[in-house]
Every structure is written in structure tokens, then in C-alpha cells.
């Protein structure tokens, strides 16, 4: 390549990569997930609702649940209202069914004091032995109190589907 072309192609290439990186950047709010909802300490303001909708955007089905009622009861200092969850009592939410490349996943997430205490698999299918991933995924969800854990080798799709189901269930609390 002649040097002028080299410079031009080099700069253009860097430009394209930067443009792609900017275009591919996810909207920052999407990161705010369950912990935010859990730590809403005091009032039953309307703020939890937008957060909840934010989380549910990747899974369109989540919007079906009536949110306002559940969100009010989630404060760590329980108001004692007879509702679905309190500090000491464990509550559960079931995700919608997430279907993906190798099967379907549906989970039930149980929370106590804002912590995930149990995750059970209502439906969980994965071809070619990928279902072996579920036990460790359940453990990882409990350990991390959410879905911010890494991938599992060779089971990217299963992991993604599982995380999506958990997020979906968490959004319903």
C-alpha cells in the first residue's frame, strides 16, 4: 500500500471501529436491576416502577404483572402490611417461560430480606447435555444475589436464557 492510502485506511478503520463501539453501547439504565429495587429503603414512592419496567424491557412478558402492589411491600423495614412479602417471610415469584435455541426455561425465585434464598426450576430443558448447567446456575444466582455472574463454557445460550428468566421473576417482586 502506498503510504497516503495506508494513513487514510488506518484512520478510516479506527473511525469505523469507534463509531461501531458507540453505536453498540447499551443504554446505561439497563444495568440497574434488582438490587436497586431491594434497597429502596423508606417510602413507597413511584420510583420503583420505572426501575421495574426498565428491567423488564428485555423480557416483554414481564409487564403483565401488576407492579404497584408488590413494590410497596418490599422495604427492609416492613410496614407490617399483610401483603405478600415482609422482612422475615420468604416470598416467591415465578418467571414467564423463556424459550431459546435449545429449549425453554422457567424459574421460581424465592426472596427473604431482599436476598435470593432459593431458585427452583419449573421448566428447564436444554439439548446435548447443556441442562447440566442448571444446578450451578442456580447456585450462582443465590451466591451473587442476582444474575451478575459470568458465562459458563459451552452453554452461552442456556446461561442467557436462565438469566433472562431470573431477571423476569425478580422484576415481579
Amino acid at each position, binding site marked *: *500500500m*502506498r503510504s497516503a*492510502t495506508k494513513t487514510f*485506511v488506518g484512520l*478510516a*478503520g479506527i473511525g*469505523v*471501529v469507534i*463509531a*461501531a*463501539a*458507540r*453505536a*453498540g*453501547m*447499551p443504554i446505561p439504565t439497563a444495568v440497574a436491576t434488582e438490587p436497586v429495587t431491594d434497597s429502596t429503603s423508606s417510602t413507597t414512592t413511584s420510583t420503583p416502577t420505572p426501575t421495574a419496567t426498565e428491567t423488564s424491557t428485555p423480557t416483554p412478558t414481564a409487564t403483565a404483572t401488576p407492579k404497584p402492589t408488590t413494590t410497596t411491600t418490599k422495604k427492609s423495614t416492613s410496614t407490617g402490611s399483610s401483603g405478600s412479602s415482609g422482612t422475615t417471610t420468604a416470598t416467591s415469584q415465578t418467571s414467564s417461560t423463556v424459550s431459546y*435455541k435449545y429449549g425453554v426455561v422457567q424459574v421460581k425465585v424465592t426472596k427473604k430480606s431482599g436476598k435470593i434464598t432459593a431458585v427452583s426450576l419449573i421448566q428447564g430443558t436444554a439439548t*446435548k*447435555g447443556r441442562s447440566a448447567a442448571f444446578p*450451578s446456575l442456580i447456585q450462582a444466582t443465590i451466591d451473587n444475589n442476582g444474575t451478575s*455472574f*459470568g*458465562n*459458563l*463454557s*459451552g452453554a*452461552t*445460550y442456556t446461561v442467557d436464557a436462565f438469566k433472562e428468566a431470573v431477571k423476569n421473576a425478580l422484576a415481579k417482586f
Partner: protein
Amino acid sequence: MNQTATQVTLTPPNQRVRLGIKKWDQLKRSQDLLETLAWGTVVLVVSMFFLYGGAAKFGNLNDILSSISRLTALVGTDLLLIHTLLVARVPWLDKLYGHDKVTIAHKKLGKPILYIITAHFLASLIQFAIADGVSLISELWTLVTSVEDMWSATLSWVLMIVVVITSINAARKKLSYEAWYVIHLLGYASILLAVPHQFTTGSDIAGRPLPTLFWVSLYLFVAGNVIWYRVLAPLLLNLKLDLRVSQVVRESSDTVSIYLTGRGLEKLGGQAGQFYMLRIMNAKNWAKPHPFSISAAPNDRFVRFTIGDRGDFTSELADLQVGTRIFLEGPYGVFTEERRTREKVTLICAGVGAPPIRALAESLAARPGDVTIIYRVRSYEDAALMGELEQIARQRGFRLHVLAGKRGVATSWLPAQFNDLPDQARLIDMAPHVSESDVYICGPSPWTKSVEKTLARVGTPANQIHAEEFAW
């Protein structure tokens, strides 16, 4: 054999040739365009990675490792496919760069690709080992034994290491050509073994239409070029031509000319100055192709190679039986009139470099006085193709300087008796128009370098100097 007495039938020279610097500019433009396309694929794969949110994935160690693994996989595979295309002997690449330059580019890419793919392997392994909380060894074992298509991907990497190591110069010297070649073929296996895991577990291809389209097209394009130009086209051509040895003539104490005939030789194409890969089709030699330049302009009567006796294979050629089947792959190379931009031409050759110069002299479109031929030999009496060069010079009004004698000053490309003056003075004396002519040089590599140095001193622009670098 003394051929000065016998007149050879010369093929009529080219009637016209396009000259001028514009031709050179066009060539450079095409080269730039092609290289831009090649680098463009690298930019494209990296861009696709970022376009799908790759920039957000550098937050923690796991994401960093995953991103390194994915980026190196994408760039490495892209370069690997380009690397493969470079040895497919694709005519459109050969025409733009010449076989030698393409081969050099192929060689240069080998090691970097291995490093990039190794980085991919290590990054994935470490990432998964951390995620699963186990040692690297046990993670590797899990990957290879239980994860889909991972055994073949790992094997692909191992084969790649073997191919690169056996191609390092030091190893090449110890290995026979055949052993090296068979091992090098494993490179194709390596490429194919890596394909399944890219499409089944590769996070950047499966389930994404744009990357899938790109990668499938790139794979098919490279495979198509390799299968057609490297295998099918030469095979079909040779079956059609059915080339046979028709005559073996001794030209000097250490050179022989081999004449081939066949059906419809015009289909072979080619230009003076080009070379073919020649295979003697017998049990012992069919798998060993050797490059030789044609020593007579292409014509419909015969194909001729004039070969210096230098090694075991070349001495075998002298004993070839008439009727032996020969396979030719080619033509290759840009040591041709197509690269000529000036009216004047200087042809310079030494010893075994004479054949392509002899063919060029025969076919160049030129008027009397346009061409100067300089032929460096050990002794006038024992010089291959001397009679033919004299005949061409006489018939077409070219100047011919035969420089016979022992070597003098180490850095000089001229015989000892010429060393009283600098080489450039001698060159201008022999070829007064050398600085404004196209110069074609063919000879041993150090000798060629020395000629090129002299040409730089007399002011011949680099784009007018043509020398085929032998890169095998």
C-alpha cells in the same frame, strides 16, 4: 551443444505494448484497493463485535477475558482465511503482486496468526476456569471432553502450532520438502476443525444474521478459490493438454532444455518471463512440483524449459524419457512485458537466470536499438542459450554484451577484468539508456541485489526495475 550454427525458428514478437507511468499508477491503485478490502474485513469483524455491544463488556475480569477471547478469535480467523487465500495461486492476486510477493505475504502472516489464536485459546480457557472455579488443566479436560465441538477446536490449535513450527526457516532446512509439504497440508485440516465451534458456541456468529452472512461468504469465497485455482483448474487443464516430453537437449555442460508438446498449447496461456510449477508424472516425482521459467516465448508448437543442473531433481531432468507425462501449474509471475512502462529495455541475466531473459528478448515489442541484453557467464563457450540470444540480437537489432570470466571484487556483479572501473560506469557504457529504461534482472539472489544497487546509483527509478524474487 553448440547451437550458433543452427538457426531456431523464433516466435514473432508482441506487436504492441502499452507504455507510460499511468500503467504503474493503475497497478498501484488496484493494489491499494485490494489491500484496503483485506484490511476492511478486519475492521468489519472488529466493528461487528462492538456493534453488538462489545464495548460494554470490559467491566470485570470475566468480561475482559471474554472480550479478548472473542476479538482474537474474530481477527485471527479473518487473517487465517486471508493467509489461506494467499497460497491459493489465485491469478488475480498473481497478476497484481507476482507469485513471490504473495508467497512472502503468506509467510509473514503465519506466526502472528498463531499468536492471535493462541491468545484466544488461553483467554477462553482462563475465563472458563475462573468461572467454574477449577484449575486450567481440569477446565481444559472438561472443555475437550464434554463441551460440544471443543475437542476439534483444540486439535485445530495444536495442528496450527505444528504447521507453524515446521515452517520456521531452521526447521525447513532439516525437513525434506515432502515431509514439510504433508505437514503443511494439515493447515487445511486445522482451518476446517475450527469451523464447528465457531458456529455452535461462538458468541459472535450463531444467531446473528449479519455476521453469519459475512463469515459464511468469506469461508465459501476462500474455499472456492482454493479448490478451483489450486486443484481443479490445473487438473482439468493438464488432462486436456496431455503434455509430454518431446525432446531433451543439452545446452551446456550443466543445463538441459526440455521440450513439451500437447494438445492445444495455446490454452496454456502465459507470457515470456513467466514460470510454471512442473511435475514429472511418475511414481517417484509426481508429488514434487518445481518452479521453472519458460525459455522460449509461448507458441503453439512447444513449451520449453531450460534447466540448470543443481540438485538431485534437476539432474534427473536430463535423463527424462521422451513421452514422459508432465503436469504444469501456472503460468505465474509478473516478470513480464506487462510491467514495462518505458520504450527502452535493459535485460540483465547471469548463468541459470538466462531462460526468462531469453524468452523476453524474443517476445518484447521493440524497434532496433531499443533493447540491450547483458549476459554474465563463467565462460563464453559453455553458456546456455548463447546462440539463441545472439540470433535474436542480430535479427532484431538488439545490443548483446556477454561478460565472461571469473568473479573479481566481492561486491561487483561484473567479471574481474571489468573491476578497474565502478560497476555503474561499466553499466552506462554498455547500456547508455539504462536510467530511462525498464530493467529486467534474473540471476542468483546476491548477484541480483548487487545489480539493483548499481541501478540505484545510475538513477533508474525503482518502478522500472523488475526482478523475480524466488521465495520457495
